[in-house]
């Protein structure tokens, strides 16, 4: 049951020698689980993800994957005005031989991935003419097209409107629960992590983190430590079920109830 999909052990990384971004970070991502990483701006979330995908190499410690991963970067910009389909096809890089071009099978997989996210209509549109939210969804579709079993998402919901945020969260949930994928993502929204993740890592400092089952790690006290902002856990009824979420408390005049 607890098969390992990805693990990092005693990871240390510095862009400039001695100036550690993070140090002695360890974690195990179990196959099929959703693993969220939370932390304030500049705490090294993106750096940690880049270490996990091998785009950066740690000075200390090691990363092991047990499966193929796909990465969805944050804020995606292109130099050339490729079409959406061209972009998603690039997710097939590992399946297309070094000296060949994507086959009709690759094209089907790319169109399928676009279809799964209701983006089929955009296939021929230039990627650079899409809105930020649409771009994020297209890059998400590209990750699906890789047929990887570990998805690594860098703030997948950050530039999306509420409806699209919901779509992405639903997809994270569906891919991990129904299709057995392992998902690792960073986010600035505690309620997103709380809604879909099994395990959460809070990046509290350079060599200080908390990692464990989401509902144990994410407490009002820990989140306050993390962000320096008061957060309340709210329970409410929805369609006959009790649900929980986190809301930040902004103590302002207008926020006061009647």
């Amino acid at each position: 049951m607890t098969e390992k999909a990805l693990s990092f052990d005693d990871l240390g990384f510095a862009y400039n020698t001695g100036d550690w971004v993070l140090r002695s970070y360890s974690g195990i991502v179990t196959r099929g689980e959703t693993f969220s990483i939370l932390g304030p701006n500049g705490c090294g979330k993106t750096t940690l993800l880049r270490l996990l995908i091998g785009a950066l190499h740690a000075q200390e410690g090691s990363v092991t994957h047990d499966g193929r991963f796909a990465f969805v970067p944050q804020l995606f910009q292109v130099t050339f005005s490729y079409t959406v389909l061209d972009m998603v096809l690039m997710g097939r890089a590992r399946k297309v031989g070094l000296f060949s071009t994507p086959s009709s099978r690759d094209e089907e997989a790319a169109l399928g991935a676009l279809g799964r996210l209701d983006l089929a209509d955009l296939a021929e549109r230039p990627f650079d003419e899409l809105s930020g939210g649409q771009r994020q969804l297209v890059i998400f579709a590209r990750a699906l097209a890789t047929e990887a079993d570990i998805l690594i998402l860098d703030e997948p919901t950050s530039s999306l409107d509420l409806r699209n945020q919901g779509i992405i969260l639903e997809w994270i949930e569906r891919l991990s629960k129904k299709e057995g994928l392992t998902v690792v993502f960073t986010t600035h929204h505690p309620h997103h992590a709380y809604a879909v993740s099994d395990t959460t890592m809070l990046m509290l400092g350079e060599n200080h983190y908390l990692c464990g089952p989401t509902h144990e790690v994410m407490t009002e006290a820990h989140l306050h430590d993390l962000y320096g902002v008061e957060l309340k856990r709210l329970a409410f009824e929805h369609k006959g079920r009790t649900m929980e979420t986190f809301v930040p408390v902004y103590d302002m005049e207008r926020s006061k109830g009647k």
Partner: protein
Amino acid sequence: MVRRNTYGELQKPGRSRTSDLLVPALFILLLALILFSLTLGRYPVPLRQVVHVILTTPLRARFNYTDVYRVVVEIVRMPRILTAVLCGMGLSLCGAAMQGVFRNPLVSPEIMGVSAGASFGGVLAIMLSFTPFGIVGMAFAFGLLALLVAFILARVAGKSNMLALVLSGVIVGAFFGALVGMAQYMADPMVKLPSIVYWILGSFVGATYEKTAIVAGAVLIAGTLLMMLRWRINLLSLGDVDAAALGININALRWVIICLVALIVAAQVSVSGTVGWVGLVIPHLARMLVGPDHTKLLPASAFLGGAYLLAMDDIARSIGSQEIPIGLLTAVIGAPVFAFLFWKLQGRGWARD
């Protein structure tokens, strides 16, 4: 009051696939231009005779030197036309590949300093009174030497990032460029200087099948490999982090492409001198026609570049009593034409900021 916004319909229907037909169309244009060019010149040969000569080429037998048409078409014009076409194809292909790899619209095949190195090799050979074949060999060798130096410089800089690559190429190019200048300054103005200047300006005069074979070897082998890697260039053009995350060995791939480009550029400079401009601008024009996808852009650039350089060479050899160096003509005629096209097509293919 709550104002309501109606979201406009987002998409227009999918683009037509006319761009799929453009690549074959450019190929046909190139073939047609080759046939037409064979008829051009001091000794006019009717198109029917050109076709006849080509179709009845004796593959093993010796040339029939009594047939004037055959001599003009196959010995005088064909090697020159093929050399011009192959150089144009090679340079444009390289330009398209390099712009993709470096993600920069100002990059041309010369960026790695290869053409400056090759120029110096050729100039040195002329000063040392080498045979024409020696000039070609020296140019080729120095072109590759320039790449080697650029490679070592980038390695010494420690990082194999774009900036280190471009800078080392610029440094090497500047160094060999200065050496060419010094050679010109010191060359005997009566004997050597004119041939040095003429060689540097570039020309397809005196093309032989031997020279054609040199370019053909480089363009067909390296060009075919580039063509096979064309989809990988799409991936490289995404940037390092993203390309690496998609499973690409970016450094190895980038160097393979740069070496293939260097091979083509060195071969081109060695047989026809520096022909600037083509490798920079043709890829832009091709991108405006078929879009930025390198699977279509590379073949489109190759055919368009071959046709363009051939057209320029046709003009160079038929406009007056004296030949105009091709390296000058490509820009003198090309610049206004491309200025017009840029204005018309608004630099299509590059992402908006």
